[in-house]
């Protein structure tokens, strides 16, 4: 459906017969094509602008004007820059010196938090950890049961002292879960929270209260790879609100180009740590910046 960036740039540069410095018009045409390619991949506009300004600088340099194939050279630069931004300082989960390590999940409604909680627990269990899942979404209908089913499938216990569906205090549940983990010797606690909008001040405060009650070692922002331009608003709102240390990109098993990855990374500076790639427990992977760059550029 979409023209790839290589195709687009090849036609831009096809008029460029003789080598030599690129004209300003060439550079502008190049920038335009990169802009369209990134926007079609759902990279957010302010991020596209910053990114292009940066790429333009490099494209003006000798490496492009002297290249045998300037189109390929520019694509290479864009790809490198994407990987650089997506992958700078990738890191693993930080474990607490004194267990339990507390991991809190946060994000918009329907992003994939509860599913991810199960996957993360399953993955950690496979590495010899003894995680405890915590049902602190007491709002969404039957979120507690959903987590209990995930826990059952993962073979991981679920701390669910409150029934949910509007009953119970998520801050209390989160606080008590850490005590429970100490008592029952779980070395990791994974707290599932309700979905919330960036603009919902009351719900954001609840997330802040949960955070303050348990001092998480990691707050992970869970974001759907299909998200469009709103990625910047939402990422910024969660950053300014509860704050987060890492990002998980979900639903990467679809065909969304996933420009949100670049948007969130660029806006918040937080690393993307994991990729969620399906509905099953094992559909989970570490994040690979190079694959993501290729995906955004459709290469």
């Amino acid at each position, binding site marked *: *459906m979409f023209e790839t960036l290589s195709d687009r740039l090849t036609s831009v540069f096809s008029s460029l017969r003789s080598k030599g410095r690129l004209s300003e018009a060439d550079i502008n045409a190049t920038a335009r094509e990169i802009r*369209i390619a990134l*926007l*079609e*991949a*759902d990279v*957010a*506009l302010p991020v596209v602008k910053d990114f292009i300004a940066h790429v333009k600088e490099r494209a003006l340099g000798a490496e492009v004007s002297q290249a045998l194939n300037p189109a390929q050279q520019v694509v290479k630069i864009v790809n490198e820059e994407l990987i650089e931004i997506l992958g700078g300082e990738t890191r693993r989960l930080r474990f607490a010196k004194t267990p339990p390590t507390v991991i809190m999940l946060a994000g*918009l*409604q*329907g*992003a*994939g938090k*509860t599913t991810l909680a199960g996957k993360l627990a399953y993955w950690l269990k496979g590495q010899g950890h003894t995680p405890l899942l915590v049902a602190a979404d007491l*709002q*969404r*209908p*039957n*979120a507690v*049961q*959903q*987590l*209990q*089913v*995930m826990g059952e*499938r993962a073979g991981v216990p679920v701390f669910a002292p409150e029934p949910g*569906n509007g009953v119970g205090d998520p801050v209390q549940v989160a606080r008590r879960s850490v005590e429970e983990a100490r008592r029952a010797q779980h070395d990791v606690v994974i707290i599932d929270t309700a979905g919330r*909008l*960036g*603009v919902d001040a009351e719900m954001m405060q609840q997330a802040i209260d949960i955070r303050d009650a348990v001092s998480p070692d990691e707050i992970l922002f869970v974001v*759907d790879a*299909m*998200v*469009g*331009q*709103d990625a910047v*608003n*939402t990422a910024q*709102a969660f950053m300014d609100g509860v704050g987060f240390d890492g990002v998980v990109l979900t*639903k990467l*098993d*679809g*065909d*969304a*180009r996933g*420009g*949100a990855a670049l948007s969130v990374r660029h806006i918040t500076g937080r690393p993307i740590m994991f990729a969620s790639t399906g*509905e099953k427990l094992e559909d989970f992977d570490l994040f690979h910046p190079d694959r993501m760059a290729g995906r955004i550029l459709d290469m």
Partner: protein
Amino acid sequence: LSRDTLDEDAWDEIEDTLISADIGVAVAREITEALRTRVQVMGARTPEEVRALLREELLRQVTNGFDEKTDRRLRTARHGDRPAVVMVVGVNGTGKTTTCGKLARVLVGDGNTVLLGAADTFRAAAADQLETWGKRVGAEVVRKGEGADPGSVAFDAVRQGIEGKVDTVIIDTAGRLHTKTGLMDELGKVKRVVEKQATVDEVLLVLDATTGQNGMQQARVFAEVVNVTGIVLTKLDGTAKGGIVIAVQRELGVPVKLVGLGEGPDDLAPFEAEPFVDAIIGE
């Protein structure tokens, strides 16, 4: 649109506003060009005049090809000796189950009887979630165990709807990515099974307003598999504008019928073009 004169930057700003609403580069550009032409022809000058023209142009894009009085209406009334059947479909996590609940609420509030069919037998606690909604809004739920055949749940729901002389049967389906052919085939089968006993009056595709350009791809494939008759645009209570529906409406010829404005039972409303457009333009 805060500038006094319309230089290139102002035109870029207009295009950027549209792109930021997820309208897509191509459509945004088309709208901006159409606006440029009109501004020339009409001799509009002030930012207010241009804004009014932009609003008009956007409204035209959103309403083009539809009769606003009739086309966005939902067919939920019994016909003959059969209940109306509504199927709710879409990718994962867009708000299908919630929409089923809210829609049942509206219909029950209008004095109809509603039966909910829990044909998501896959996701953890999906049927429980629908059951909670059923209790909340006063609608019975037909369900089977986890892993049951979704087609057979839908079949039973419709059969019970016919026997119980129910007005509307709403069938919730599992979220599925449009790229998963096996799951899409399954969805087509659910619809065909229902059609053995009744007409499927509405197939509502639930699109999340935060969705970017992938929304078009979703719409295309779902339309192909189950013949979508209306779009539900959810989560409009957030900062996302849901601009992709402009391209979706145009390509599918299918209107947005409902919008989701929150997680509560009353947070469902008919789609109206004007507030939708005003949210995109701002202030």
